[in-house]
């Protein structure tokens, strides 16, 4: 049946790992919006939740880097990061290899996606799940766009991947939700960690909420790198979520810079028919 949800959220490891150092007023408002998103998704009773992330060398490396990947396992472990670093305990998450396989086969009609029968969640998935708390009955399907090790697939291919995921989900009988995770502008894990291009972020989210395909795809990677940092490459996941929403307009539930979390912390969704 048609995709039941398409949303986006931040995933920086500082969101949990450095929580105690953030301005509590902004932090709690952000956490509340994040948890509300989880409640919204649970209320839709999805059979599966696709978490489309921009992972950071937990599974994929420059020895064999897929532009696009989808997990195909009955369970996933994570987070890979030390609990002392991320402040999220390690656990096993439920997957559904058979459902993943059907989703992958349909996605492959238009996008050459890699599949992975093992997948360790990193903060890109574990931080969102920490707040979203999907029901234990809901299977997780991790998906990934390479946003870390250039060369990166162009933005219009990220859009095509989002469209392909939507077509695949719509063609299956299960109720499937999608959450894409990433940062907007940021310079993570560098001496400039905490730097945020606020105006750039607002303009990007304006384009995202308008689901303006041409405007979303008009950035070059050189411009993103210059204006939004190497972390800005992660807008690919937000772009795929917009494509998966098939033209629906977005609602930004929360958006505020939190420097110790290294990004404009964002929670937004596109209500689907």
């Amino acid at each position, binding site marked *: 049946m048609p995709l039941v949800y398409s949303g986006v959220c931040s995933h920086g490891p500082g969101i949990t790992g450095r929580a105690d150092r953030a301005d509590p007023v902004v932090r709690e408002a952000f956490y509340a919006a994040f948890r509300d998103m989880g409640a919204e998704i649970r209320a839709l009773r999805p059979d599966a939740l696709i978490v489309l992330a921009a992972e950071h*060398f937990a599974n994929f490396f420059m020895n064999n880097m897929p532009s696009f990947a989808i997990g195909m396992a009955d369970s996933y472990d994570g987070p890979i990061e030390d609990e002392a*670093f991320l402040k999220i305990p390690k656990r096993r998450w439920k997957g559904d290899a058979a459902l993943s396989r059907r989703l992958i086969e349909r996605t492959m009609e238009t996008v050459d996606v890699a599949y992975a029968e093992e997948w360790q969640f990193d903060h890109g998935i574990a931080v969102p799940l920490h707040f979203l708390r999907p029901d234990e009955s809901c299977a997780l399907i991790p998906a990934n766009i390479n946003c*870390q090790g250039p060369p990166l697939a162009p933005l219009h291919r990220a859009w095509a991947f989002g469209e392909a995921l939507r077509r695949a989900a719509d063609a299956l009988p299960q109720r499937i939700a999608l959450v894409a995770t990433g940062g907007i502008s940021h310079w993570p894990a*560098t*001496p400039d960690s905490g*730097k945020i291009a606020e105006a750039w972020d607002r303009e990007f989210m304006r384009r995202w909420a308008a689901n303006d395909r041409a405007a979303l795809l008009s950035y070059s990677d050189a411009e993103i*790198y210059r204006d939004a940092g190497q972390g800005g490459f992660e807008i690919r996941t937000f772009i795929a979520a917009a494509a998966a929403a098939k033209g629906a307009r977005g609602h930004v539930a929360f958006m*505020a810079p939190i420097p110790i979390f290294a990004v404009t912390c964002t929670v937004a969704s596109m209500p689907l028919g």
Partner: protein
Amino acid sequence: MSLYGVQKLIWQLNRDPRQRARFGTERDAVLDEYELSVEERAALSKPDIGLLYVMGVNGQLLMHYAALHNIEWLDYLQRMRDGLTAHGPVRAGVYAATGYEGIAAHDARLAAERQGGGRAAGL
């Protein structure tokens, strides 16, 4: 240039607990398994976080290498700044520094903006 080897070693340490354990007990044997220059090997052994950053190690790998050595977050950021001072700009990769006021000053500016009628959605 063997930046690839440096990054591959860190990647494997990050994701494989057995390799991490070996790195603690037989560090030289682990280092021997990768093609590394003398400078790279020394930077990894020390570890010299600032020099590894300047060499171009991706921050998404390097921050975990720092955490593995119990280097706290703000200390990790400072070591990279010190690396820039000692060794000059980042030589390769996408993780160059571009200049930033710092988290404390940034937080203070945002708090002042909020008091003057902030524009953060959801607040």
